[in-house]
């Protein structure tokens, strides 16, 4: 049995003890101190992740079992730990960004009535995400996968008094549940056939698997990832999930939870990769989602909804990269995206916190450059990193994907460039509208004050990451190599060719230029097209009709349930019993009316009885 380093146990024990301490002691006694043990546990987790990163970077992998969870006869499902390149890469980003967001949340949520409840769920989510990244078999993966979904349900609905928040939480959980249908079924089918779903085993048996089982489980994995990472059919819950507090949006709907889907696809890549048509399908869906979401992001008013659609777009981009076979590029973009998107969300949070309103619309905010200088600086760097400006991290990760797209063919290159331009377009529109000179229609807040230090420092640190992570490309691929099975070739991050980078920068440049012209030069454009084309705006509001389709489907299910539950069950089945009871009563009525009480009738019956018996005798 490989000796499991202490760091791995700390990953689980630190959050568990913090949660237990917080729930049993602090919550009833002193709820406002709940965040203290949790912040400590965040620090411990980050340190142990750093240690594990070094451990893996130095070439060691780890795949051991902690204890037997379910067993039947000779077979059993185990609780295990698998620390390998992929896991640690994403884990380091998640733990670092997560810890910083915890500190930010301590400031942001101060004074909120549900403070301790928020922090307990927030940290439980953090634990679940870490568990998901280090689990070593699908069933354990499914456990943390569902736990993440459940925590997101309670966190989105944190402000329980807001009806929209409650509806969004339910919608988010149900969509995730529909996605988990795919994952559970796939795990069941694989487990039924191979009696073992450890990732290590998966790499060996994937080639030998039956083709139809392979195709089905591959597709079901993608279906689950589509729900969790908001791909085309099941993405509509993410923009609504912005109803939750900003730290929730930052941690969950930017850096960690939504990336779990992509992480699942990367984890089971040997299986999905070997299905003939699936990668192209994933690439197509990814590209479509990315372009569609970018388009929708340009038309949104609320700051956080723009960032939500931007996340959907970038997840589409990662799926697009995966579809092209660039697993390393997708992972690299996942890590980089985690940094700059978290930074953008936290800046949006500072803007909202500063102006005292839960959410800020693009129309209201304007010219905040002067009143929020620090937030403006961080926002600008993170935005430029997202757009893909040269020295920043976004450029390196997006360029790697563009490079792969160019090799694949003209359609892929066109899609890649379109995504690059769309990304630059909506993020610079948001930058110009919010921070540059107040325009005529905008009503800037009375006086917007800068966020306190505890909220600015985490954003700054994350922006440093968004700034510098790009340069670690080489180290990143070296980290991925350990623990990846030799049998399946892991394409290394492609070297950046000047031609492709040039094209990418050009696309980004013209995107920024277009948004500069539309927002600064034609200040009233953003409002005019809404007034002149209300129909167009309505179309954009309901995601080009997709939300209506989903609403219709939900209504069909509910009406069907009502017809079965109330009508069929009550009127048909129950009524059958009641009718048989009434039949007995009627029969009894006729029976007792036979006894008329007159002697001659009873004698008549006596004789007919005797005659009947005689007839029976005659018959025989």
């Amino acid at each position: 049995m490989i000796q499991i380093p202490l760091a791995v146990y700390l990953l689980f024990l630190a959050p568990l003890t913090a949660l237990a301490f917080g729930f049993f002691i602090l919550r009833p006694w002193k709820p406002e101190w709940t965040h203290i043990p949790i912040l400590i546990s965040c620090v411990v987790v980050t340190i142990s992740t750093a240690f594990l990163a070094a451990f893996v970077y130095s070439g060691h992998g780890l795949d051991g079992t902690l204890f037997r969870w379910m067993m039947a006869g000779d077979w059993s499902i185990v609780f295990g730990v698998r620390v390998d390149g992929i896991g640690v890469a994403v884990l380091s980003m998640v733990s670092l960004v997560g810890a910083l967001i915890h500190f930010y949340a301590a400031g942001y949520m101060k004074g909120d009535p549900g403070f301790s409840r928020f922090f307990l769920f927030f940290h439980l989510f953090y634990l679940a995400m870490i568990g998901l990244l280090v689990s070593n078999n699908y069933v354990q993966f499914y456990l943390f996968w569902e736990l993440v979904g459940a925590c997101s349900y309670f966190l989105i609905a944190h402000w329980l008094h807001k009806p929209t928040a409650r509806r969004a939480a339910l919608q988010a959980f149900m969509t995730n549940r529909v996605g988990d249908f795919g994952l559970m079924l796939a795990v069941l089918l694989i487990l039924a056939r191979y009696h073992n779903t450890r990732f290590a085993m998966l790499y060996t048996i994937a080639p030998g698997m039956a083709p139809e089982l392979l195709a089905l489980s591959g597709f079901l994995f993608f279906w689950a990832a589509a729900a969790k990472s908001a791909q085309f059919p099941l993405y509509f819950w993410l923009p609504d999930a912005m109803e939750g507090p900003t730290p929730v949006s930052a941690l969950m709907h930017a850096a960690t939870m939504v990336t779990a889907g992509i992480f699942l696809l990367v984890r089971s890549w040997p299986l999905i990769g070997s299905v003939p048509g699936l990668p192209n399908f994933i690439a197509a869906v990814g590209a479509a989602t990315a372009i569609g979401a970018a388009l929708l992001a340009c038309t949104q008013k609320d700051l956080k909804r723009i960032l939500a659609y931007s996340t959907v777009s970038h997840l589409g981009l990662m799926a697009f990269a995966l579809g092209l076979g660039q697993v390393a590029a997708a992972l690299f973009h996942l890590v980089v995206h985690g940094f700059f998107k978290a930074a953008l969300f936290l800046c949006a949070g500072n803007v909202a916190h500063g102006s005292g309103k839960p959410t800020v619309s693009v129309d209201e905010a304007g010219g905040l450059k002067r009143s929020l200088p620090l937030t403006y600086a961080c926002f600008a760097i993170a935005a430029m990193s997202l757009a893909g400006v040269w020295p920043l991290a976004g450029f390196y990760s997006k360029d790697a994907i563009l490079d792969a797209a160019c090799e694949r063919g003209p359609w892929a290159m066109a899609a890649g460039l379109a995504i690059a331009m769309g990304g630059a377009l909506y993020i610079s529109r948001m930058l110009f509208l919010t921070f540059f000179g107040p325009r005529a229609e905008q009503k800037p807040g009375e006086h917007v004050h800068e966020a306190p230090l505890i909220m600015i420092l985490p954003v700054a640190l994350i922006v440093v990451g968004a700034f510098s992570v790009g340069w670690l490309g080489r180290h990143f691929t070296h980290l991925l190599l350990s623990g990846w099975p030799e049998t399946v070739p892991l394409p290394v991050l492609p070297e950046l060719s000047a031609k492709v980078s040039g094209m990418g920068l050009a696309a980004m440049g013209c995107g920024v230029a277009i948004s500069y012209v539309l927002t600064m030069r034609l200040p009233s454009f953003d409002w005019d097209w809404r007034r002149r084309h209300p129909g167009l705006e309505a179309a954009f509001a309901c995601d080009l009709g997709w939300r209506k389709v989903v609403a219709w489907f939900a209504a069909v299910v509910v009406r069907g349930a009502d017809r079965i539950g109330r009508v069929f069950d009550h009127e048909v089945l129950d009524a059958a019993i009641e009718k048989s009871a009434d039949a007995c009563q009627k029969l009894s009525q006729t029976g007792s009316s036979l006894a008329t009480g007159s002697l001659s009738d009873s004698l008549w019956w006596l004789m007919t009885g005797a005659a009947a018996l005689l007839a029976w005798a005659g018959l025989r």
Partner: protein
Amino acid sequence: MIWLLRPPLELLQPQAVLAVGALCVLAAGASRRVGLGLIKAMAGASVLAALLMLMTTPFWAASPPLLSSDILGWAFQGLFLCAALPLLYLMKPADEIPPALVLASVLGMGLIAVSGNLLMLFIGLEMMSLPAYLLVARSRSPQALEGAVKYFFAGSAAGAIFLMGMALHFAATGALSLEPSTDPLGIAGAFLMIATALFKLGAVPLHFWLPDVYEASDPELTAFFSTGLKAAAVLFLTRLAPLAPPWAMAWAAALTILFGALVALRQKNLQRLLAYSSISHAGFMLLAVAAWMAQGRSPRASLAVFFYLAAYLFMSTGTFLWLKTEGVSEREEMRGLGKARPLSAAALAVLLLSLAGIPPTAGFAAKFLVFWEAFKAGLYVPLILAGLGALVSLGYYLGLIRDMYFEEGTKPLASAPHPARAVVLACAIASILLGLMPWL
């Protein structure tokens, strides 16, 4: 071994004791000097003496010309005498006639038990029935006379039919013995006699006299009718068994169970409800006899018949005597008894559950044995119908329990403790113990 009669006739010793007892009762009554209590005691003593005599006579002795007896007949005689005891203990006769009539009726039943040929059977039948008509006439309820007249005419018509059957049988076989005959005349005669037996038992098309008689007579008398007379009718049927077709009996049984249970659902008067429920139980007894006949009169099947009647003896006596002790006659009066009289309500609940055939009770063991024999005899469809009949009968048994416990009632608190309450409790406990018999 007490020898009253010479060896071949010792079978009749219990009947002889009863006859002497009846005469003494009449004589004591005529002398006007003996108190009614003493007369009842004399009647009771003679029944007990008959029981003792029964225990000691070797029933397997050689059977003289007119008589024949077997284990079934012997056991049933025990039943008849046990059925008579509670009646004699509880009846409040105006004069000495009713106790004598009871003794005479039990004597008639005894004769059926030991009869070897048709004539003796007819004598026993009439000896049993005639006192019964008069007993009904002497009951205290306002419609007693009407019940008695109906009972008389129906009973005598049945007797006449039996005679016609006997004549046909005699013409066909030349003898009054019980051997089945094959030629059509004999079969026709046999079926007429079977009709009489079914009439006495209360099988459905011929049952219309039963509810009126049970409603008209006093509860303790109805108890005697439902246990004693019904057992005699079953024995009468078993005597005619060689002549009867099992399948016809099984279908009649299923019809009786279902009809009795259904009609009882809506009865308002409790005695009439219990009358229809006793018709339903008669159906089960008929099913048991049919199964017994279908299996070539195997002794094990006869155990099922006897056990059903023994269990029914306790259940029915207990229920009817409960009506007497609580003075309840309409179903509305049952409401709220659960709280008003907890102990007696509990006793009745046990008895009703036993009548319904819910497992821990004797009723279930009896029904279970009948079901088992019927299945072994291959009577599948009547068995299913009997099961459904049991379900329907559960409807009103539970309905009574529901009225007692779940409704708020108007009945005053417990009335003066009645001597019969001990008998009711004894019956309730007996019906639990008998139920656990297979495992005790």
